[in-house]
C-alpha cells in the first residue's frame, strides 16, 4: 500500500506528483478514486466545492437537512456499494415501498417492481398479460448494441399501441430520473427501466450526508489524498499524453487523470484545444446536454409529522391531461415529483421535509436579471406550495422553511454546463469512452449517455473507468511521470 497519509482538507495537495489525479468528487469520481486507492495507487482527489458528493448533496437550514438527489435509486446500488465501497454502506440501503402517481389519467400506489407493475397493467389498465410479459422481457434484453434508431416511442407502440396512459405510467418516472424522452433510443429506456423499475426504489438510511461521510472515511482508509476547494484550471498534456493538472496555479504531475467534471467542460474548458484532433472536437460539439432541474424544499416544523399513508414516499403528480416529456421541461410547470422524507430517513433526527423536483431548461433561467430571477423563484415556490396543499392539508401553517434551487444553482455548485442534472444524451457516452484513445492517460467518468447517469450509473461508470486506469497504470508502470522527466516551472 502507499505511504501517503490521507486527509480531507481545504487547501493544496500534499505532493507534487501522483499516479492518478481525479478531478471532481461526484459519485463517479469518488468511486474511481476509492477503487484506485484501494488497488495501491497514489491517488489525489480534487474537488472545487467545499464538500464531497457533487450532485449527491444536502444542505442544512434551521434544523432541517435537505437532500437534493435522494429521491430514489435502483436496487443495484446495494451490490455496487458492497463491492466498491463497504458492507456498512450497502447495509444502510432500504426500500421505499410507497410510490404514488396522481394525474388526470390515473391515481395509484405501487411498489415499483415488475410484479406490481404487471398486476396494475393487467387489473387496472386491462392490458393482456402476454403483452406485459413480452414488454418486460424485451426491455430486459436490450443492450448497448441494439439498433439506436428504434426510439422509446416505437417500443411502447409495439407493445401497448395507442395506450397513452400506459406510456405515462412507464415513462414519466424515467423522464424525471434521467431526463430522457420518447425520442431517445429505446435501448436507453430498456437498460434504465430494467435496472430501475424491475425491483423497486431504494434510499439511503441516514441521508446523503451520512453516505458521503462514510465514503470519505473509506477514502481515508484507502490512502486517497482528498482536497476540497481545489478547482482544477487545466489538464496538462504533452505529446498526446496527459501529464498532470494545474491547480491554484501549481502543476501537479500524474500518470493518469480521471475527469468527473462535465463531459463538455472537460473537453472545452479544461484541455487546451490544440491537444484534440479536429474530428474529435467535431464529434464532441454534436453532444447534446441533458436538461437541468428546479427544486423546492419545504421544512416541516419540529414535532409535526406528515401522514405516510396519505403521501407515500415518492409522488409523481401532474395536472397535464396527457403525458408529454417536452411539457415537463416548461417553466410553466404542470408536473412535479415530491419526495416525502419522514423521521425514519434520518433515525434520531426527528424531522420531516418535502422536496419537489421539476425538470427544466437552463435557458429559461440563465439570463433573468436579479429582480426577475427573484420573482421567478418566488412564483415557483408559490405554485409548488399550492400543488402540495392538495396532498398535505394546512401545509402552509406547518412549514417553517421554504427555498428553491434553479438550473443556475446546479451550474454554480457543480460547474455542469447549463446546470445539466443528468449529463448528456446517448451520443455523449461514445465521446467519453474515446477520450483516452485521443489523449493517452486521460479518462472521463461521470454522468453521460443516459444509461450512465443517476447515482448507480455514476458509481458504476466510476468502476468501469477505474478498471481501465488500473490496467493503463500497470502497462505503463515503467514510465515515469513528467515531474521526473521535465523540470516543473
Amino acid at each position: 500500500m502507499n505511504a501517503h497519509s490521507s486527509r480531507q482538507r481545504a487547501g493544496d495537495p500534499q505532493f507534487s506528483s501522483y499516479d492518478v489525479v481525479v478531478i471532481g468528487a461526484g459519485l463517479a469520481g469518488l468511486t474511481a478514486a476509492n477503487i484506485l486507492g484501494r488497488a495501491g495507487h497514489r491517488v489525489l482527489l480534487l474537488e472545487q466545492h467545499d464538500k464531497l458528493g457533487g450532485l449527491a448533496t444536502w444542505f442544512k437550514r434551521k434544523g432541517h437537512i435537505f437532500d437534493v438527489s435522494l429521491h430514489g435509486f435502483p436496487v443495484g446500488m446495494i451490490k455496487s456499494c458492497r463491492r466498491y465501497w463497504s458492507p456498512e454502506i450497502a447495509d444502510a440501503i432500504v426500500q421505499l415501498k410507497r410510490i404514488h402517481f396522481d394525474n388526470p389519467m390515473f391515481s395509484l400506489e405501487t411498489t415499483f417492481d415488475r410484479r406490481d407493475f404487471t398486476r396494475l397493467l393487467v387489473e387496472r389498465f386491462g392490458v393482456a398479460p402476454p403483452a406485459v410479459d413480452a414488454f418486460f422481457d424485451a426491455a430486459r434484453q436490450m443492450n448497448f448494441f441494439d439498433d439506436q434508431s428504434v426510439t422509446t416511442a416505437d417500443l411502447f407502440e409495439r407493445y401497448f399501441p395507442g395506450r397513452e396512459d400506459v406510456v405515462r405510467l412507464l415513462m414519466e418516472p424515467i423522464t424525471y430520473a434521467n431526463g430522457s424522452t420518447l425520442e431517445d433510443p429505446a435501448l436507453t429506456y430498456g437498460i434504465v427501466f430494467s435496472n430501475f423499475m424491475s425491483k423497486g426504489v431504494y434510499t439511503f438510511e441516514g441521508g446523503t450526508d451520512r453516505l458521503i461521510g462514510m465514503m470519505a472515511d473509506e477514502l481515508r482508509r484507502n490512502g486517497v489524498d482528498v482536497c476540497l476547494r481545489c478547482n482544477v484550471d487545466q489538464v496538462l498534456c504533452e505529446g498526446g499524453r496527459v501529464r498532470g493538472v494545474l491547480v491554484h496555479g501549481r502543476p501537479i504531475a500524474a500518470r493518469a487523470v480521471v475527469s468527473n467534471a462535465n463531459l463538455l467542460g472537460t473537453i472545452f474548458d479544461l484541455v487546451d484545444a490544440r491537444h484534440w484532433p479536429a474530428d474529435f472536437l467535431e464529434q464532441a460539439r454534436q453532444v447534446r446536454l441533458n436538461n437541468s432541474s428546479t427544486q423546492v424544499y419545504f421544512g416541516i416544523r419540529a414535532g409535526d409529522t406528515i401522514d405516510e399513508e396519505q403521501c407515500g414516499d415518492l409522488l409523481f403528480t401532474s395536472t397535464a391531461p396527457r403525458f408529454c416529456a417536452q411539457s415537463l421541461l416548461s417553466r410553466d410547470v404542470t408536473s412535479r415529483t415530491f419526495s416525502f422524507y419522514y423521521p425514519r430517513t434520518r433515525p434520531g433526527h426527528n424531522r420531516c421535509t418535502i422536496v419537489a423536483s421539476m425538470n427544466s431548461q437552463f435557458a429559461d433561467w440563465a439570463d433573468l436579471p436579479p429582480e426577475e430571477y427573484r420573482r421567478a423563484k418566488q412564483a415557483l415556490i408559490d405554485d409548488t406550495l399550492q400543488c402540495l396543499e392538495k396532498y398535505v392539508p394546512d401545509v402552509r401553517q406547518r412549514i417553517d422553511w421554504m427555498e428553491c434551487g434553479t438550473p443556475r444553482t446546479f451550474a454554480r455548485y457543480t460547474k455542469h454546463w447549463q446546470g445539466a442534472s443528468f449529463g448528456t444524451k446517448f451520443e455523449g457516452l461514445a465521446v467519453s469512452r474515446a477520450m483516452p484513445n485521443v489523449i493517452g492517460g486521460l479518462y472521463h467518468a461521470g454522468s453521460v449517455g443516459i444509461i450512465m447517469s443517476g447515482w448507480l450509473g455514476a458509481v458504476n461508470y466510476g468502476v468501469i473507468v477505474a478498471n481501465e486506469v488500473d490496467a493503463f497504470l500497470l502497462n505503463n508502470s515503467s514510465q515515469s511521470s513528467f515531474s521526473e522527466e521535465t523540470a516543473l516551472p
Partner: protein
Amino acid sequence: MTVAEIRQAVIDILSDIAPDQDLSALNDEMSFREQLEMDSMDFLDIVMELRKRYRIQIPEEDYPQLASMASTVAYLEPIMKDMPKK
C-alpha cells in the same frame, strides 16, 4: 498452473464476487449468465480480480471469452500455464 488449478482460481474469484451463489453444480459448458445471476459489472469484476491476483490483462475485445467456465479456462490456459500455483 494446470487446467484444474486455473479452473479453481476462477471459482475462487466467482465465490468472492457472488458469495450467495452455489458454484458446486456449475455446468462448465453453459454460460455463467444462464446459471448465475450475473450482470456486466460482475464480468468486469472477474477481469479486475484476474489483474489484481495474477497481473493478467484482458483487453475489452476479449471479454466475450469469459462467457462460460470452459471458454474462460481455455482463454486463460496459454496465459496461466507457466505461472506457479498461488
